[in-house]
């Protein structure tokens, strides 16, 4: 208990003193997970919408696969990404193993099915007549899709929050493909693991608290947007 209090005090010390190393780690976490979420947003929403709006054989199987992907274990993603991009791997020529780029790739793979699954459900959840209505008003197919996406922005922003929450808190893949390199690929979660194994529990708790505050601020911002769009 005493340790937790110490950790909280330490967290505020680190934040208020603008400790350069901790600030760097926090900023990097935000950059990597933010970029990964951004990428997953494009891929996830477009494929999710496409699957929701088209009918084809095996659609249920595809949806089950996407939904399974929402629970993709980060360490497994990390392992596969590592094998693909190490020097002797098929994508080894990119030379991105143990870089922040590799972390973005891995995190985007983790976040994409989450965003895809939620946006798929969101579009499917719209009243089926809405599509006909929009089209009968003379909209092109692309315009219709755009209106549908705008119509489901509430669950779509929830998808962004779920995706971001999934990757900012993830440690397995980040430590495998990023390597937890000081000042280069060390993020809040991997630093927490390292400080714990060093026995610096107060710093580990402090980093955990900073992670929570960061996640809270991002979600607060997104929630502002989400809720103001719907003044009900």
């Amino acid at each position, binding site marked *: 208990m005493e340790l937790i209090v110490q950790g909280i005090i330490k967290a505020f010390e680190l934040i208020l003193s603008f400790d350069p190393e901790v600030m760097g780690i926090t*900023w*990097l976490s*935000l*950059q*990597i997970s*933010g*970029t990964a979420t*951004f990428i997953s947003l494009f891929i996830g929403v477009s494929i999710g919408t496409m699957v929701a709006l088209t009918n084809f054989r095996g659609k249920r199987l595809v949806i089950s696969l996407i939904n399974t992907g929402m629970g993709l274990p980060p360490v497994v993603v990390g392992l596969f990404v590592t094998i693909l991009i*190490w*020097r*002797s791997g098929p994508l*080894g020529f990119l*030379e991105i*193993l*143990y*870089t*922040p*780029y590799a972390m*973005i790739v891995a995190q985007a793979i983790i976040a994409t099915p989450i965003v895809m699954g939620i946006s798929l459900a969101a579009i499917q959840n719209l009243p089926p007549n809405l599509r006909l209505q929009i089209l009968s008003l003379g909209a092109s197919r692309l315009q219709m899709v755009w209106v549908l996406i705008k119509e489901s922005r509430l669950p779509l922003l929830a998808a962004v929050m779920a995706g971001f929450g999934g990757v900012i808190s993830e440690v397995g893949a980040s430590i495998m493909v990023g*390597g*937890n*390199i*000081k000042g*280069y*690929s060390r993020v809040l979660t991997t630093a927490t693991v*390292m400080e*714990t*194994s*060093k*026995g610096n*529990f107060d710093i580990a708790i402090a980093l955990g608290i900073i992670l929570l505050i960061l996640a809270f601020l991002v979600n607060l*911002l*997104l929630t*502002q*947007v989400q809720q*103001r*769009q719907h*003044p009900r």
Partner: protein
Amino acid sequence: MKMFRNSRLIITLMIAALLVVSGAANLYAAPKQKNIILATTTSTQDSGLLDVLLPVFEKETGYFVKTIAVGSGQAMAMGQKGEADVMLVHSPDAEKKFVAEGYGINRRLVMHNDFIIVGPGADAAKIKGVKSSTEALKQIAMANALFISRGDNSGTNSQEKKLWKAAGVNPENQKWYQQTGLGMGQTLNVTSEKKGYTLADRGTYLAMKKNLALNILVEGDAALLNIYHVIEVNSTKWPKANGEGAKAFAEFMVSKRTQEIIKSFGVDKFGSPLFFPDAGKKVEDLGK
């Protein structure tokens, strides 16, 4: 008004997102040839030694070192695939095999410290002060006292297995023998929490002592020497490996200046050095 506020918020959000993404686009990309991947043991990182040495090396040579801290077993597996350029490890038998098979070159002695057997103050197996490490392990086995093993093929783990073999005890599948599969720091935490015994390197133990309810029970046995070598990955076998950088790092580790830093590292904090520099010495002469 409402509309206006909404769009302003969205624009702010877009700008924030853009800032984050564009920042990521040039994430301090270090020039490619200047990177070295150093595969090393958790003990060199957890003790804080590398945090002191690497900045000196990077400033001196301009190389950027990517430290991957894993067990010695995994470090050598990385070297074997050419996924690392240079290794700082402490698993002599496996290292000799590694070099003999042509995966590594220029294996050089860097430093040593020693392993210790630590355990709870109550010391159910009564091993405190026992001179021989194998004798102590035998007593732990006889007393069915809980022993926590790394179980991760690290240098410490190989040393531990060697000692069990010498003691003539097979601890596998015994109720009193548990494997964590974790690094040294975390294994010490587990051992402390469970009031068990374990084999640890002195450096990590000293660095973490303040949080542990564990005492040094057996030390000073010649069989407990913990020896670190630097090995360059054979870049003729793996053309993608950075042979030049590996050589520079290995040379740095055995240089006079570095050896001086190693010698004084930890003295101010723990009252005694964590590692003893040995460059240029012979393994047979250590601990005498």
